[in-house]
Each structure stands twice: as structure tokens, then as C-alpha cells.
């Protein structure tokens, strides 16, 4: 059995006494695609905040590739280790064009001087074209991102995530505001990149989660409530009570 890529162990986070994460443990294997569901406020986004270094946990460790404790590192270091993230609310660089957004995200040296002397290589150009295709933003390549509609921003952010080529992708509600067809496409996309990359995706759209067809973790009040295939967890009475409803 391979070592897990990411291992959360007993992570707790509280805000003014309110426990957003409560002794949460979770393990993601290399190449695994994992869906995480759970009620609003269960702590899914907070978990991603902890992994990416945005929020420091009160307790617990987050081990990446076996030996790196992410809780001690700053955001940019974590990102450079190969962890990319798409936010729940799409955040893109509003004054940059779609093209520039992707260029900034491309996996290249991040230093000041490499930035000063960077020149777009043929390879990079090709990769950007690919990403524009995937996100169907080719026609809007020269539009500043601030002028994109909500769904288009979602796509752009997915494109930026792919451009980073991370080992682990954290995807927070990618299909919110997408049509059913796009939802389906997104599921395909995520499935396609898993295997080479690990992916954690948070979604409330059950159709989408079903489409992914992978192991599902249910969070509730900051801890794990259930884990297993979608069918197993959706049969769980507690999950139905707190999440799915009747």
C-alpha cells in the first residue's frame, strides 16, 4: 500500500469558541479523487483553509507526502509544494485578461527575478491554448477577468488551477452556477486529471457527485460523519437527516 499523499490528523479549528473543525482526520492517496459533502457550515471550506495554510489549526497536523507538516508553512510555500486550490467564491485577477490570469498560474519559477526576465515559451503558449480550450474561454482570452460572468469566472479559476499543475487539487464547489451539461463536463475533467493528480472536491450537487463515482466523505459539525461510496453514505440515516433531507 502506498503512503497517503495528504494526511490530516486530529485537526481542530475554533473561532471564538465555535468549533468549525473538531478533531478531523482524513487521508488522501496519490492520484485519488475524493468527494466531500456535508451540510452548510460543516467545515469543508475551513478544512481547505487549513490545508492551504490560510487558517492555522488549534490542534492536529496536516502531513503532505508523508513528511511535510503543512501547518507550519506559509501559503506560498504550500502552493509551491504542489497544492492548488479553487475557491468557493471565484477569485480571479479582475484587472488582468483571461490570458494573463492563466500565464500567472502556469507552473514556472515564482521568484522575483525569474518573473522579471520571463518570456513566454512555445510550450507555455501551447499549454495556455489547451487550457483556453478546456475552459471554453478562447473567445474571451483578451477580456479582463472582472468583466466575466459568474460561471465564466468559475471556469477561469478551474483553468488556473490546472495551469498550476499541482499534485493535489482542492476544488471548492466547482459547479455552482453551472448548467447541467457543464456540470457533467466538469466531472469528466476532474476524473481525467485524477490518477496523475490527487483531487479533493467539495460539492452539494449530488448529480455531480454521482457522476464522479468516487469515495465520498461526509463532514458534519467539523468531523467525519460517514465515508464510502455515494450509495452507502446516502443510505446512512444520519446523513439523510442532517444533509440530504427527505
Amino acid at each position, binding site marked *: 500500500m502506498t503512503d497517503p499523499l495528504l494526511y490530516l490528523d486530529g485537526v481542530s479549528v475554533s473561532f471564538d469558541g465555535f468549533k468549525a473543525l473538531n478533531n478531523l482526520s482524513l487521508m488522501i492517496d496519490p492520484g485519488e479523487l475524493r468527494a466531500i459533502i456535508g*451540510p452548510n457550515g460543516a467545515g469543508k471550506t475551513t478544512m481547505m483553509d487549513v490545508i492551504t495554510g490560510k487558517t492555522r489549526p488549534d490542534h492536529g497536523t496536516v502531513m503532505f507526502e508523508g513528511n511535510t507538516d503543512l501547518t507550519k508553512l506559509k501559503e506560498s510555500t504550500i502552493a509551491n509544494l504542489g497544492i492548488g486550490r479553487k475557491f468557493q467564491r471565484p477569485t480571479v485577477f479582475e484587472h488582468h485578461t483571461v490570458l494573463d490570469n492563466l500565464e500567472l498560474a502556469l507552473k514556472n519559477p515564482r521568484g522575483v527575478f525569474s518573473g522579471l526576465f520571463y518570456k513566454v515559451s512555445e510550450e507555455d503558449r501551447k499549454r495556455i491554448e489547451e487550457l483556453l480550450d478546456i475552459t471554453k474561454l478562447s473567445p474571451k482570452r483578451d477580456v479582463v477577468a472582472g468583466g466575466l460572468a459568474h460561471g*465564466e469566472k468559475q471556469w477561469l479559476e478551474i483553468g488556473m488551477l490546472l495551469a498550476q499543475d499541482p499534485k493535489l487539487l482542492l476544488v471548492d464547489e466547482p459547479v455552482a452556477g453551472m448548467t447541467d451539461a457543464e456540470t457533467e463536463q466538469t466531472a469528466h475533467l476532474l476524473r481525467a486529471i485524477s490518477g496523475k493528480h490527487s483531487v479533493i472536491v467539495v460539492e452539494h450537487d449530488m448529480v455531480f457527485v454521482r457522476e464522479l463515482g468516487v469515495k465520498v466523505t461526509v463532514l458534519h459539525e467539523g468531523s467525519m460523519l460517514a465515508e464510502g461510496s455515494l450509495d452507502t453514505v446516502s443510505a446512512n440515516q444520519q446523513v439523510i437527516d442532517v444533509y440530504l433531507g427527505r
Partner: protein
Amino acid sequence: MLDVSGIDLHYGAAQALRKVSMTAEPGKVTCVLGRNGVGKTSLLKAIMGLHPTSGGAVTWEGTPVTKLPPYERARRGMAIVPQGREVFPLMSVRENLQTGFAPIPRSARTVPDEVFELFPVLKSMLDRRGGDLSGGQQQQLAIGRALVTRPRLLVLDEPTEGIQPSIIKDIGRAIGYLRDKGTMAIVLVEQYFEFARDLADQFVVMERGEVMMAGAKADLEEGEVRKFLTV
């Protein structure tokens, strides 16, 4: 009754709406459908006066409101649940709800019980800051806040986005309940087709800033509608 006729809307040089017309009636849910970026949100902005239109007219309960600022429209009974929630981040949940008191008479300034019945989580978080809520909780707050103004027109922009399934069902029930009271006209923008289909009395389907199809649910064929939602 809401009557939108032939409105145009521009963002700088780019035109987002072209001669869009639609109506919404009390006791009915009008569903606006369309792919990303076709102009649904822009249409709602035009209805609520959040972005100036460059042509056409919006009439509400018989009076033209095209030139009125949003707060005047709110005072005439219009309310919106915007895309992206837009709760007031630094104000408590309670205060967020209380912002809805502005357009209503002093005597009516209470938070209706139905808000907490629909979204019990809000009751337990009254003193938490709006901005600290989770995405879904914010969405619930945004809907609750709109209901505080006792609107006669409720405009919802993708209210199910980011909401857990059980609450989506609750919201669906809530919209159904509000519609069934018969006094409220509801305009609903949705991507979640099943949800929309179950609630809608009439459809408006948009593509590239224009209305492609419109009519009562009974008159429209689902396949036709779906065609405009696939890529």
C-alpha cells in the same frame, strides 16, 4: 405585475441585454434560464435598478420604475436575493435581517417567523457576523433578509447555489409556499434545471443577451428548453 419590455443594458461598450421583455405575475414563479454569461443576472439587475438600462422600460404594478433608484423600487415592494449573496459582512446576522426594515412601516418592523422556520440555522447564529458564515449559511441569510421586507416581487438569482440538498428542498418548499400565498410574484434565475422545472409556472429562456423562448410551463417543451442549456 412586473412588465419588462424591450430593455437594453450595456457594460461599457459591451451589450449584455438586447431588447429583453418578460412578465411576472403574483402567485406565479417565472423562471429565467440560460447558460453562463447569457445575461440572466443582468436582467435581474435591470429589474431591480442595480445597473442602468440604455433602452426599454420596466413597469411594476402599473407604474414605470425604469428611472427609479433601487431603494425606491424596494419601497414599492420589490426585493432581490443577489448572486453571490452580498450579505453585509461586518454586521451580525440579526442586523443583516434588520436592514430589511428600511422600506416598511415602523409598526411592521419585525423579522417574520417564517424566516426562522425556513432557515432555523439563522436563529442559532443571530449574533455571528454575516461575513463569517459559511457560503450556504450566507445564502440562507440573503433569502431571509429579502423576506423581511415583505416583498410583493421577489427576485432570486441562483438561490440554490452552494446550498446543501436538504435545504434546497426547503427553499423549494418555501418558494412554493410563497407562491401559493398568491400575493407575491417570483422571478427565479436557476441553473439547476430540475429545481426550476418543479417550481416554475412560466419560463424565460435566454441566449446571448436575448430572450429565445418564453411562455407557460405547459406550453414549452422540456427538450427545447434544455437545448439552450447544453453546450
